[in-house]
């Protein structure tokens, strides 16, 4: 009985503690991760994000579907940016046999969608299809030598819709230029621990949205703060480049995945930040080297607020690097994410909420 009482008290304490107590980031993530938004086609997800923002924040949206708002006045100008696009494909053509051919690219190991369902996002709604397995998939023996890239690689791949002619495929609403995403499954390991496609960077979007919803405008004094959800990061940071034409921040906090090696198949030589260990400061990645002085400032603020933060170096770029040439300092923030750029990107709720708390703390305390 005593143990049960202690456990109940502990749950109560955790539930009312400041860190993440008011956060809705997790629920936001679970909602927006399912909204399609392949790079260059972010309209649906940008709409959802803009729609969730309070009207008082006067969010803007440009022709590319970048969404942002700015509050406060003066220096420093701090920019928080997350990208709303996700990995996926674009329909290239429809064959006479009714197969849908997608353009090369995608950013996902193409073999992981072989013999898997995908969704084609057409003007008339989603059309499901299956990526056929390679023609010789059912041979009893493996090829005698390691085969070159599979049919589902450099040349793009086909999608089977269940039809036999081009006309039937078009009658479903499928057309060239439609986007394609893997059919997403939310894998719930436990409450607050999940894996799915497009956590990169919908988790960043969710953290920013949650912070925006929890933000008290009165806390922004003597500084300018911009929140941005930009587009086309996965294909070349194009949305950020567009924003950089008009936004000239002093500091950029790019919110994106920390590619963690917290998995059984990867070397722990670097990037081993455990999932569940807290938010992350990306010290070094493929696009930026964060000054140590700035890392220490972030850690000090986090410590003051009791927010768990880890520091690591990994690979991959971030949108903040686009603003370097304009004079900004880029300090990428993250959560530790296993299995980046896969169908099973893993995330822990505690990390996401710590990240949101860190964003809010930086708005107040950053100097």
């Amino acid at each position: 009985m005593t143990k049960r009482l202690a456990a109940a008290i502990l749950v109560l304490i955790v539930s009312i503690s400041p860190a993440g107590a008011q956060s809705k980031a997790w629920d936001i993530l679970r909602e927006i991760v399912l909204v399609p938004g392949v790079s260059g086609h972010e309209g649906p997800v940008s709409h959802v994000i803009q729609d969730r923002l309070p009207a008082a924040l006067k969010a803007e949206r440009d022709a590319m579907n970048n969404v942002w708002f700015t509050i406060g006045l003066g220096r420093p100008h701090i920019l928080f940016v997350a990208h709303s696009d996700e990995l996926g494909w674009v329909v290239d053509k429809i064959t006479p046999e009714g197969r849908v051919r997608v353009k090369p690219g995608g950013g996902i190991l193409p073999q992981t969608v072989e013999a898997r369902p995908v969704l084609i996002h057409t003007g008339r709604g989603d059309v499901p299809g299956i990526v056929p397995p390679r023609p010789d998939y059912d041979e009893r023996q493996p090829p005698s030598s390691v085969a070159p890239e599979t049919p589902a690689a450099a040349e793009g791949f086909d999608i089977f819709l269940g039809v036999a002619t081009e006309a039937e495929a078009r009658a479903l609403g499928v057309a060239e230029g439609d986007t394609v995403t893997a059919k997403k499954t939310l894998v719930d390991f436990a409450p607050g621990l999940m894996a799915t496609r497009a956590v990169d960077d919908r988790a960043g979007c969710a953290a920013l949205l949650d912070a925006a919803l929890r933000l008290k405008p009165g806390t922004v004094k003597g500084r300018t703060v911009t929140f941005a959800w930009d587009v086309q990061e996965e294909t070349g940071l194009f949305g950020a480049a567009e924003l950089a034409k008009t936004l000239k921040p002093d500091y950029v906090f790019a919110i994106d995945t920390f590619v963690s090696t917290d998995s059984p198949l990867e070397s722990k030589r670097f990037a081993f930040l455990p999932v569940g260990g807290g938010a992350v400061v990306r010290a070094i990645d493929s696009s930026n080297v964060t000054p140590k002085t700035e890392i220490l400032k972030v850690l000090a603020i986090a410590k003051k607020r009791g927010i768990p933060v880890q520091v690591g170096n990994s690979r991959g770029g971030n949108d903040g690097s686009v603003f370097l040439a304009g004079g900004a300092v880029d300090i990428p923030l993250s959560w530790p994410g296993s299995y980046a750029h896969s169908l099973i990107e893993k995330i822990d709720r505690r990390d996401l909420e710590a990240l949101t708390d860190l964003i809010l703390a930086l708005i107040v305390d950053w100097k």
Partner: protein
Amino acid sequence: MAVRLARTMGWIAAAVSVVVAGAGAADIKTLTKELLPVPSTTGNEEMLAAKIRGLLPKGAEVEEAGLGTIAVRLKGSAGPTLILAALDGYGHMVSGITPEGYLTLDRPVAPPHARFDAFLLGQPVIISTAKGPVQGVVSQPAMHLLTQERRRTLVEGFSLESAFVDIGVRSANEARAKGIDLLDPVTYPGVLTELAGDQWAGPGLGLKAVAAGLLSVAQALASRGGGESAVVAWAAQTKFSARGRGARPSIGAAQVKAHWQPGRTVVVDIIAAGKGDGAPVPGRGPVLVQSRDEPSALRQALESAAAAAGASLQRLTAPDSPLSLPFASPPSEVITLALPVRFLNTPSEVVSLKDLQALRDILERFLEPGGTK
């Protein structure tokens, strides 16, 4: 053993609740949807067997043979006949737990093709434990950290040696606390994808569709009485073949033969389709498969049943499958009626609902009194 017993009891209880829910005849689509998410791999067929039992009409005479096979005896049928389908599909099972809490995998039987294990990479899976289903993913390296060479060889060289299932825990003890145990089946989530042209796709869909077809026929005919009887059986361990030289019959099918000693058998199976070069074509009806293209009373009866049902049939001459081999010795007669399946033995088997309905209707006609004449 205790865990196995607990799991079996749990599923039997679930099946009983289904019986109470209603045992009226359901359409083939509904039945297929009911069976699709139920895991059933060789040696772990008890959940599907319990589900089928639960969906059989009240009062149906359910019989059992060794290894987990179940059957229902239909009276008032066209004659003493065995209708046999598989209860088990290809799949994986837990073979170990690492100190970090990752699960290692093995297969109960040899894979159907060389790429079977490679489909696991980076996919969600379900581990069916005594405590219920546990969700997991098969680990995959982050794309950012793969060299071009590693990326090129990752899938081609992927095997069970590099398959680790992440269930979101940090130790073997935590994994066990979730109910994970050795031999627990590991399968893909039974998610259905409804395609155009009345075609469905899903993992293990061919097996479940055929099982549903037999179930639907059993539901329709179970209430009849008198006359001769037919046995409709769902056999366990059909993917496990006898050891030794020469032909290697399915162990599960061999046990069925030993138990019921049928004079004639219709094996209801699945067959690769849509591959061109004379292979069966999806949507053109079930496939009659014989080892020799010669007339037989059984073939004639099935052709008559197809005609009466208004269903098309495709025909194929092929060696006896492990499932039909035990019944192939004279004087007993055997023929295979197969459901064409596109992308067979992949995580997205595609089935034409038209073919499935035809298969079901042919079997019903065949089993009706006079159906074999």
